C-alpha cells in the first residue's frame, strides 16, 4: 500500500546457483553469526528457525536425465516488501538507506501477519524460547540480541556488519555512505567455500554486483508478483531460471 521508497544505496546479493552445491556452510555461518539457537531436532522444516534456508531444486525429469540445483534463500529485502505495510505495529520497516528491511523484535507482537504475507517463507516465528546447551551461550556474539519466544525474526543482511563497517569508515575518516566493495558483506557471503554469493551495493558501479545483476542469466524470485527483491540469482540452466517464477505453459522464461 505504501509507495516504494527509492534509495541511493541498495545492498544486494547475487547468488550463482550453478556454483552452489548445497553444502550448508552458509546456513551454519548464519546461525552462528546471528545467535540463532541450535535445534536438537531440526527435522521439522516447518518449525526449524533459519534466516537462510537452502532449497533443493529438481528439473523434474526421471533418471538418468535428472538434474539438481540448490537455492539459498535469505530475506529478499524486497523493494516493495509485502511484509512492511501489513505489520500493525511498525515492527518491520524499510526506511534506511541501503534498503534493508528491518525487524524490530522488541516491538513485534507476534501476530505473524508478515509471515502470511511473505511468499518466500523468509520469516520465522519463535515458537519456543531459544535454548542453548549448557555453556554454549558463551559462544553468542555480542552483535545480535537473543530473541524471546513469540516474536518473528528474519535475515537482516547481517545489518550489524553494516553498522560495524560504517563505524570503521567513520573511525578511519572515510565516508560511511560510500563503503568500498567488500567492506560490508554478510556472513553467508563470507562463508561460502564456492564463492557462490556476491554482495554489495547494486547502485554503485564500483561494486561487482552492479554488473552481475545485468547478466542475461540473472533473475529474481517471483518477480512478477511485484515484490522487487534485492536478491538476484544467476544460472545458465534454463530450467533453474524457470523455477524462479511462476510461468504459464506458453510463457517464455525470462533472463
Amino acid at each position, binding site marked *: 500500500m505504501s509507495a516504494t521508497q527509492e534509495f541511493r544505496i541498495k545492498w544486494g546479493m547475487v547468488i550463482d546457483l550453478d556454483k552452489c552445491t548445497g553444502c550448508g556452510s552458509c546456513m*551454519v555461518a548464519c546461525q552462528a553469526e546471528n545467535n540463532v539457537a541450535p535445534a536438537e531436532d531440526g527435522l521439522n522444516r516447518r518449525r526449524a528457525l533459519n534466516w537462510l534456508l537452502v532449497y533443493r531444486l529438481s528439473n523434474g525429469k526421471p*533418471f538418468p536425465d535428472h538434474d539438481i540445483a540448490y537455492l539459498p534463500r535469505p530475506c529478499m529485502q524486497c523493494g516493495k516488501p509485502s511484509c512492511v505495510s501489513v505489520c500493525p505495529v511498525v515492527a518491520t520497516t524499510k526506511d534506511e538507506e541501503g534498503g534493508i528491511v528491518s525487524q524490530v523484535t522488541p516491538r513485534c507482537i507476534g501476530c505473524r501477519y508478515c509471515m502470511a504475507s511473505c511468499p518466500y517463507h523468509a520469516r520465522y516465528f519463535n515458537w519456543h*524460547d531459544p535454548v542453548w546447551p549448557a555453556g554454549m551461550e558463551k559462544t*553468542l556474539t555480542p552483535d545480535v540480541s537473543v530473541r524471546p519466544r513469540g516474536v518473528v525474526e528474519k535475515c537482516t543482511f547481517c545489518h550489524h556488519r553494516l553498522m560495524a563497517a560504517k563505524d570503521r569508515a567513520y573511525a578511519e575518516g572515510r565516508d560511511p555512505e560510500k563503503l568500498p566493495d567488500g567492506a560490508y558483506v554478510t556472513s553467508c557471503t563470507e562463508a561460502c567455500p564456492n564463492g557462490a554469493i556476491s554482495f554489495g551495493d547494486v547502485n554503485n558501479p564500483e561494486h561487482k554486483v552492479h554488473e552481475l545483476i545485468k*547478466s542475461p542469466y540473472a533473475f529474481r524470485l517471483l518477480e512478477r508478483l511485484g515484490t522487487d527483491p534485492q536478491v538476484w540469482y544467476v544460472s545458465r540452466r534454463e530450467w533453474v531460471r524457470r523455477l524462479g517464477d511462476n510461468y504459464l505453459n506458453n510463457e517464455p522464461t525470462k533472463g
Partner: protein
Amino acid sequence: MLDRRGFLKFVGGAAVGTLATPVVWKGLDDLSIWTQNWPWIPRLDKGNNLNTYISTTSKLCPSACGMRVRLVNGRPVRVLGDESNPLSRGGVSALASAEVQLRYSPARLKRPLRRTADGTFVAIPWYEAEALLRAELVKAARDGGLMCLSGDENGTMNELLSALTVAMGSSDFYLMPGEAQTTAAAWKSLGGRGRVGYDFARSDFVLAVGAGVLENWGPVVGNRRAWGRARPQDGEPAMRLAYAGPVQNNTAAGADWWLPIRPGSEMAFLMGIAQLLFAQGCPSAGVESFAELAAVWTPEKVARATGLAPERLQQVVEQLAAARAPLIIVGTDLGQGGEAAPVILGMALNTLLGRVNQDGGLRILPEPEPVFPRAMSYGDMMAQDFTAAVRAVADKKRAAPSLLMIYEANPVYAMPRGAGVEELLGSAGFSVSFSCFLDETARRCDLILPSAMGLERFDDVNTPFGLGEIFYALCQPVAEPLYESRAAGDVLLDLARLIGLDMGYATFREALEARAASLGLDWAGLMKGECAISRATLPLESLIFPSGLIAEALEGRFIQPEKGALAVATFTKLAFGTADSAIPPFATKLITDAELTAGELSASMNSATIRELGLREGMKIRLVAGEMSLPARVRAFEGVAMGTVALAAGFGHTNFDAFNNGKGANVMDLFTTVEEPGTGLAVWRCPDVKIVKA
C-alpha cells in the same frame, strides 16, 4: 469540604487525567519491553566490545580449513574463513564453521572416566587416570602388546603415537582407515615412490570417479575455492568437472556432467575410458598389458556393467582428450575402506594422459621427514591396515592387544558393524580412549581421557590427503581447554617420561617447533596463520602396470544383481560430521528428506526402481543383507542409479549427544570387511540388499 461525591469525582478525574499523560503509556511500553528480558533468555556479553582474532587451522574439518577465530574479550564466538590462507582462501566448511559451538557439545567429555566392575563410569582425577594408564603402559612395554589407533589424518601427532608404539616394542600403530591408505596402496602397486597428490586447482577438466571433490574428498574447501574461482559469474568457466558415481550428490550438483554409474562399477567405467583412449591412438608402449586388458571394455560392455549410456562414456573421453590439463581422481564417497584397484586404474590413466608431475595433474610428493625419533615413516604408516588387524584379532589369527590406545577415533561407530571392532575392544587387556566426546567407542573403553579440542591445543596439519602440493599449517589454542580436558600429546609425553622413555621433546609444542625448524619455517609466522606451501615433486620413475592384480580384481565383478536385490550407495555431507566427529549443533537444520524421512534414514531410489519393487514413497522398510539389516523409509529421488538405493552416511549415532542420538540409522550396520582380490587390502563392502516391508 470534600464530600463523598466530590471525592469520587476527584478520583475519577485523576484516573482519566493520568491516562491523558504519557506516564501510564510510557510505563506500560517500558514494562512490556523489559518484561521480555526473562532470566532464561541469555543476555549478550558485550565484553567491552573487545574483539580479537586468532588465525589457526581446523583439525575437525579434514580439508584443513584456515580459520580466523573471533574472540570477544577472550571468548571464542565465531569461526570465520581466513582470506590469507592459501588453501581455503577465506572459505570455511559447514563443519569448521560450528567448531566453537562444538566445544560446548553436550557430548563433550568433562573429566577422566574409569569403567568400574559393574560397567558404569566414575569420574576420577587426572593423577589417578595417569597413574592407571602409566601402569598399563609399563605392562604393555613388557609384553609388547600395545596397539594404537589414531583418528588424526595428517599431523605430527601420528609421529608421536607411532614413536611411542615402537618405543614400547610394538609395531601396531594404525591410522583410521581412509582414502590416504587406499591411495598409497594403489601407488605402491604401481611401483611408485613417495606420496601422491592431485593438483585439482590447476586442472581445466577434472573427472572425479566416486570422489566427492566438492563435498568431502581431500582438501575439499581448497578444491571448492579453486573450482569457484575458475567459474566466474560473469565469464566462461576455466575448469570443467565431470562426476561419475551412483548418486547425484553435492559434487554431482556442482559438476558440469553427472555420469550415473552403478555402485562398484568404477573399474568397468575406467576400463572403458582406457579402451577408448587406446582405440583413439593413445600410445600403449610400456603399458601393453593395460591396453590388452582394456581392449574388451567396449562402451557397450561398459554400459552393461555400469548402466551408463555408451555415448556418455565417449563424450567423457572426448573431453579428456580436448582438455589442456585433464585430471582423473578416483575415490569413494565414504572416504574410508575403499578398494585400491580402481585407484590404480585412475593413476594409470593419468599416466597414460601424460599428467604425472604436471601442473593440474597427478603429482608425486616427497614424504615428510619425521621429527620424532623412532616414528614410523609416512609410507610405513600408510602400509598399516587397521581393518586387517581387527579382522585378525576377531578371527583369533593374532593375539589381542594387552593395551589398546585410541586417539580421537570412533571406530565402533565409523567402521563396518561386521569389522570386529567391538570384539577387539572386548578382547583387549585394557583400553583407553583419548577423546573430546563421550562417543560410541569411548563408552566401550576402560579409561576415557578428555582431549582438548583442536581449538584448544597446539597441533598441525602436514599436507592433507589429496592435495597436489606440500602444505604445512599450525593449529594453536584460541582458548583454554574446557573443563578438565587436556592436550593428549602433552599427556602422552609426560607419561612417556614417567616410564623412562625419551621421546625427544618435553612438550608437544616443542616437537612442532622442531617440525617448523626442519621445514625452515618461522614459528612466529606460523603463529600468525602463515602456511608453508612447496611445489616440490619427486621425479617420475617407470611405473609398472599391475595387470595381474587388475585382472584378478576385475574377475567375477559386474554381475547383474539378483532379482529384487539392490546395490547400496552412500552419500556423505561434511556438515554432518566425519568418522571422528558427529553432527554439530547447528547442522541439524541442514538435514532434509534426502537424509531422513520421518526421523528414519531415507532409502532413496529412482521412481523406476520403486515401481519395479512395488514400493511406495514414505513406506517403512528394512534393508536386509544376510544377518545385517537397517530400518529406513522409501524416498523417491531421480538422482540415483538404476537398481540402487542411496543412504546418507553419518547418522544413527547411539551415544553422542541430543543433536545426534536417535536420528536415522548407521549405514555401517550394513557393511562388512572383505579382502580385495589382487591387492589383498582389507576393504569395506556393502553387499546387495533386499527390501523387506516393515
